[in-house]
Every structure is written in structure tokens, then in C-alpha cells.
């Protein structure tokens, strides 16, 4: 991956990482969007979409409720989409390696978000006098500093992940021995199981949800059979 690609993809990771919490929370950071656009940046949006759909299944589990700590999928999905798209379509290990890289990056990204929140708290504390005076400059300054710090955080997470994981992913994909279909089947089994468990937890208390799920499943399977 060239330096220009790393810079471009990291900038995308920064913007989509910012969307996770700070601005504008339009869900540009959801894996199905972020990985697809990440793949498109490296020249293969279709592969990015495959990674994005797989990661989206994982992301259904970690909804950003309250002040809970969760993986940061925005920058991470960009990394996953870009890594997978950098390999030829026939590379059997590309999807599992890219998904693993993205989940690891999301974990680290989640940790950096916690550090950013601590930094914001420290900054607000140190500007207490200005806030108590009702200084607009302090209020706006805190907001702009927080947004900028989050943008820098997302850029660094993406750039470091790409620089560290691209050579590793290349080596692993080169050594990959399992058949491509079985490799993808293994990954999607895990991701769909995580999604299924998350859906169960979210919807099982809703009246009629189980029957509706089964109804949808029958239609989905029928569409699959008659394709």
C-alpha cells in the first residue's frame, strides 16, 4: 500500500471515526458504509462491501447505548475494507484476515475513545473558571478542541493500524491454506451467530417478534431456494 493510499485511507478513517460519537452521528461510521467506502478508496468497493456486511453483523451487538464502552467501528471498518480490497479477489484468506484486523482495530479504537473522553474531562476541568464566567469562547473552544482531538485520534488509529497490519496481513494471506469458501463460511458463522444472539437479546421481549422472525426466515430461505 503506497504512502498516498495510507494518507487517503487514514483521512477517511478520521472522518468516519469522528462520526461515531462526535459529529454528525449520521452512521457513516457503520461498518456496512465505512468498509465499503474504504474498499472503494483502494479500488474495490465490492470487496469492501463483503467485509462491511460481515462486520455489520458483529456491530449489531454493540449499540452505542448511554455511556457504555464499545468498539469503534468507523475507523476499524475502513481499515478492514481497505486491507481486503488491497488483495486480489481470489485470495482465500483476504476476508478472514481483514475481518480479524478490523475487530482488533475496533477494540483499540474503543480504548482510544475512552482516553479521549478522559482528556475532554481534564480539559473541561482546567477551563472551569471560563465556564463559570459564561465565556462563549471557552464553551466553543472546548467543543472545537474535542472535535479536533477526535479527528486526530481517528487518523492515528487508522494510519497505525494500516501500517502495522498490512504487512502482517500480506504475509498471512500468502501462507493461507484453507479453501476460500470454507474460510468465508467460518467467518460468517461466527459473525451471524453474534448478530443472532444480539437480535434475540434486543427483540425477544417484543410481542410477536419471534413469530415474525420465523416468518421472515421462511421467506428468506424460500428466496434462496428458488434463486
Amino acid at each position, binding site marked *: 500500500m503506497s504512502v498516498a493510499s495510507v494518507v487517503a485511507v487514514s483521512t477517511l478513517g478520521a472522518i468516519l471515526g469522528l462520526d461515531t460519537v*462526535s*459529529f*454528525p*452521528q*449520521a*452512521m457513516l461510521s*457503520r461498518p*456496512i458504509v465505512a468498509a*465499503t467506502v474504504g474498499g472503494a478508496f483502494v479500488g474495490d*468497493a465490492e470487496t*469492501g462491501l463483503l467485509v462491511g456486511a460481515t462486520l455489520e453483523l458483529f*456491530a449489531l*451487538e*454493540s*449499540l452505542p*447505548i448511554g*455511556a457504555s464502552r464499545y468498539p469503534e467501528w468507523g475507523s476499524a471498518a475502513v481499515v478492514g475494507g481497505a486491507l481486503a480490497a488491497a488483495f486480489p479477489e481470489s485470495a482465500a484468506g483476504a476476508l478472514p484476515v481483514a475481518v*480479524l484486523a478490523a*475487530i482488533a482495530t*475496533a*477494540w483499540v479504537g474503543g480504548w482510544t475513545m475512552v482516553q479521549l*473522553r478522559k482528556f*475532554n474531562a481534564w480539559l473541561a476541568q482546567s477551563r472551569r473558571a471560563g465556564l463559570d*464566567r*459564561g465565556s462563549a469562547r471557552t*464553551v466553543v473552544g472546548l*467543543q472545537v*478542541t*474535542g*472535535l479536533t482531538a*477526535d479527528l486526530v485520534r481517528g487518523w492515528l488509529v487508522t494510519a497505525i493500524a494500516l501500517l502495522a497490519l498490512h504487512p502482517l496481513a500480506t504475509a498471512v494471506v500468502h*501462507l*493461507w*491454506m*484453507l479453501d476460500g*469458501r470454507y*474460510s*468465508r*463460511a467460518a*467467518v*460468517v*458463522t*461466527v459473525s451471524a*451467530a*453474534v*448478530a*443472532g*444472539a*444480539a*437480535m*434475540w437479546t*434486543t427483540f425477544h421481549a*417484543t410481542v410477536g*417478534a419471534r413469530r*415474525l*422472525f420465523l416468518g*421472515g*426466515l421462511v421467506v*428468506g*430461505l424460500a428466496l434462496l431456494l428458488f434463486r
Partner: protein
Amino acid sequence: MTAPSLGTARRTPRLPPVTQMGMLLRLLAVQGSWNYETMNGNGIGFCLEPALRLLPGGRDGEAYREALARQARYFNSHPYMASVAVGALARAELDLVPPTTIERFRTALTGPLGSVGDRLMWAAWLPFCSLLALAAFGLGAGPLAVVCIFLGVYNAGHLALRAWGLRVGWRHGLRVASALANPVLRTGPDVIARAAAVTAGLALPLALYRIIGVGRTLTGGVLVAVVLLALAIVRVRAKLEGWRTALAVLALLVLYSVVRHG
């Protein structure tokens, strides 16, 4: 606009469109300085600031500074529902409601705006839109179509909620609690959850098939494995998050494939 009143007893005053637009745009960044101490309190002050300029004395006035100091303190709510708080608090400040009343009102808003927003958006609308995009993906939609479906549908709800919140907050002021009894907020989460359940059933087999590639038998086997693994995850969910388990399983898969090469 300067006479004291409590909410809707008098005709709703007009908030200048430029001020409204400024507040709406700032609301998109309400969590810009989110932290564990003041949560999105500073963000609320940031979003209210354009309206506070309309207080007697303007930006240099005592009323402006006192109100901004009050509004930048601790506050916690769902980011989209923060628009309700911003609208209602702007109305209260411009109606010159006593500071102690505003502070009590601010405290009372925190809980309901958090739980209503979490139930409607995070636990219902977001999973529904996500599953809808996965269904479109499973049905063969291309990258652009999937991204547009997800972002289009999700943000239609998201932006409408923010705009509605600001409008309804401003209109009702201190009596905004009545607006939270809106049928969409009360029954919406259940209706959307049902739609999401159907979409989940439809999307899962189709999405799995597309990711794996050709081979219905393999997809059938994967579906059975998915059900068994999902049940196992539900049982241990309190102790372990699924994505962490997945990280370990995928690391083992990568290790196995590489070791086989050696």
C-alpha cells in the same frame, strides 16, 4: 419574548430562522466534547448559545453570561433527543424563567430524554436500518445501492427527530414533557422492533449466502451452526461479549491456516 411566562400559556414567540438553523447545525456536534464528568453538558451550552444572544443585553450582557454558564454544566441525554432539551431550555431562558426553575427542569429532563432516545433509535431504528441494508445486500444490491439505502432510510428518521425535537421543545418550553407522550415515541420502538424481527429473518440467510459464495448445502450447514452458536452466545452473554469471542475464534482460525502451511 422578554416577558416571564411558563411555557405555552402565551402565544409561542418566533425564533429567528437563522438562529434555529444555527442551533440545528450545532446539534449535530452536541457530543463534540463528551466526557465522563459533564457528559454532553458543554454541548448543550454550545447548541443554546445562538439563542442566548437574543437575551436582553445581547452577547455582552449579564443575562447571556449567566445563562451560558448555567447551560454548560452537567447534562446527559440521548444525542438526538438533546434537541428537545435545547429547544425547551432556549424557550425557558428567553422567557426569563427564574434560574432555580430552569436548573430543576434541566435535571428532570435528563432521564426521560436518555431512555426514550435509547429505546427508539439505538435499540430499534438503528438495528432495523442495519438489517434492511443487509437484506438489500443479500438480495444482490451493489455497494452504492446498499450504502444509499442504509444512509437514506436511517438519516430520514435521524434528521426528522432532531428537527422535531428542537421545534417541539421550543413550542412547549417547560411543559415539554407532554410532547414526550407522542405516539411515535411511546409505541414506535415496539413497531420498529417487529419490523426489524421480520427483516432479520429475511436478511440472515440471504446475506450469509452472498458472503460465502455459491453452494446452498454449505449455506444450510452454516445456518445450523449459526443457530447453535447463537444459542451458546445468548447463554454466556452476561459474562462475555460476542465480538470478543469472535476475535479469539478468528485468531485461532488464522493461526490454524498458517500452521497448516508449515
